[in-house]
């Protein structure tokens, strides 16, 4: 059986676009026919659940029963990929919890594929956070995501400082989420559908919708760029190693 993959999407600050990134990930795996489920930790009412109601369950990662719901089902769930949208401020404590239950240990042994998408905030404090998180993450696939989607007053940081931090983290990869036109973003929010449905002019139940062609075009273009970034870091290969590698293992 293919080994399960867990992707944590988190940041220590709110409003940096975690959920947006989680949504693009779910769409991406959907487009690659990879069964995916998602957990939204913004209990009681999650934003992610609003966009992907069928795939998403709202949980409280700090409660043991919900931890069981997520991690005890990794092997048995139909979905191969589990995306967890970690609420603002809970990334460090979630990682701590994962370490306590021995999850990070199994990831290290290669029984589970584990990746962290760390969404960076605009302030310099995030840099301290990177170093700290990186220590806990250990051998996970660690992605630093610069989110330009809302083009906030972002990355006024001086590049030298940033790079000095970035280089300290072994194996970290950088992902850039480009800007999406505000009106296009807003219309997707209003429609409450996955980006892919918006592009395909479909409503919440798959019925034909009537979104602006221009806005759909912008979202398609933007989503293509985001997925291009995921392709670049070989996300699909990471969560579902191809047949060839199995063949090679057998042969070797």
């Amino acid at each position, binding site marked *: 059986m293919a080994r399960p993959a867990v992707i944590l999407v988190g940041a220590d600050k709110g409003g940096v676009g975690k959920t947006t990134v989680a949504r693009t990930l779910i769409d991406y795996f959907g487009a690659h026919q990879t069964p995916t489920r998602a957990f939204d930790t913004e209990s009681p009412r999650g934003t992610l659940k609003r966009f992907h109601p069928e795939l998403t369950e709202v949980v409280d990662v700090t409660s043991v029963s919900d931890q069981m719901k997520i991690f005890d089902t990794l092997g048995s769930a139909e979905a191969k990929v589990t995306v967890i949208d970690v609420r603002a401020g809970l990334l460090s404590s979630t990682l701590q919890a994962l370490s306590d239950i021995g999850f990070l240990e199994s990831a290290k042994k290669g029984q589970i594929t584990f990746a962290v998408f760390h969404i960076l905030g605009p302030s310099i404090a995030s840099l301290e956070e990177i170093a700290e998180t990186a220590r806990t993450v250990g051998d996970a696939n660690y992605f630093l995501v610069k989110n330009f989607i809302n083009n906030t007053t972002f990355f006024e940081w001086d590049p030298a400082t940033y790079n000095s931090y970035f280089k300290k983290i072994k194996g970290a990869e950088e992902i850039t989420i480009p800007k999406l*036109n*505000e*009106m*296009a973003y807003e219309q997707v929010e209003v429609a409450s559908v996955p980006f892919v449905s918006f592009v395909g002019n479909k409503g919440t139940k798959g019925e034909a919708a009537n979104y*602006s*062609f*221009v*806005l*759909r*075009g*912008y979202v*398609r*273009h933007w989503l293509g760029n985001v997925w291009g970034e995921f392709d670049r870091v070989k996300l699909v290969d990471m969560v579902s190693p191809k047949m060839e590698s199995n063949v090679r293992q057998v042969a070797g």
Partner: protein
Amino acid sequence: MSFRNSITIVASPRPRVGKTLLARLLTDFHSQEGRAVAAFDLNSGEHTLAQFLPERAARATIRDISGQMALFDRLVTDEDTTKVIDLGHESFESFFTVAHQIGFVEEARRHSLAVAILFMATPDQLSVEAYRNLRVRLAQATLAPVHNELLGPAQHRDKYLLGGGSVIVHLPVLAPGLRKHIDTPPFSFANLNMGSAIGIPLDGHIEVQRWLRRVYLEFRELDLRLLLADLQSSIRIRSQST
């Protein structure tokens, strides 16, 4: 697909090369052929398409997103109306950038609308490069170079790589003395037939009509080429699928 359901963009990165005149002629041509036509004016300043044809041409902008929505969303809907765009030189780059990004030509084709670009072929490097660029960026659109004979004899055919049987569309010259009669807005060539062209002497009137016939002949040939290109591509698709 032919002119009956098409979107024609008259374009050049340069000002004062005859775009608006061509767009006026094309809009009137469609009207006289009995088609519903809507023209979009992407120019600033005086003597623009919207001033010449206030009933059929509306001003449009692509500077902001709401303008883009108003323009492009309208272009791909309302399939029974033929559309003409007079693309001012200052909007050239942004128009095609947006069109490329949002997949305009592909969307139009899904609505059975053919997109044709009438490109004013001038020998300057800017235009030649813009033309080559368009061939790549909007590969699915029919790109037809136009030679405005007013700008002198064509000596730049080889600069506009004409492949696959494509031909230059000619915009013939109207006799100098007659230009003043057609250059004060509002003015529609469609009205000429009804004898309402006040102020044009009879022999001049005949001359304008003769010129108009030559222009319309060019448009009809272009129409046939669009049709042919479409047939060829559908034959190609069919032979690929078998």
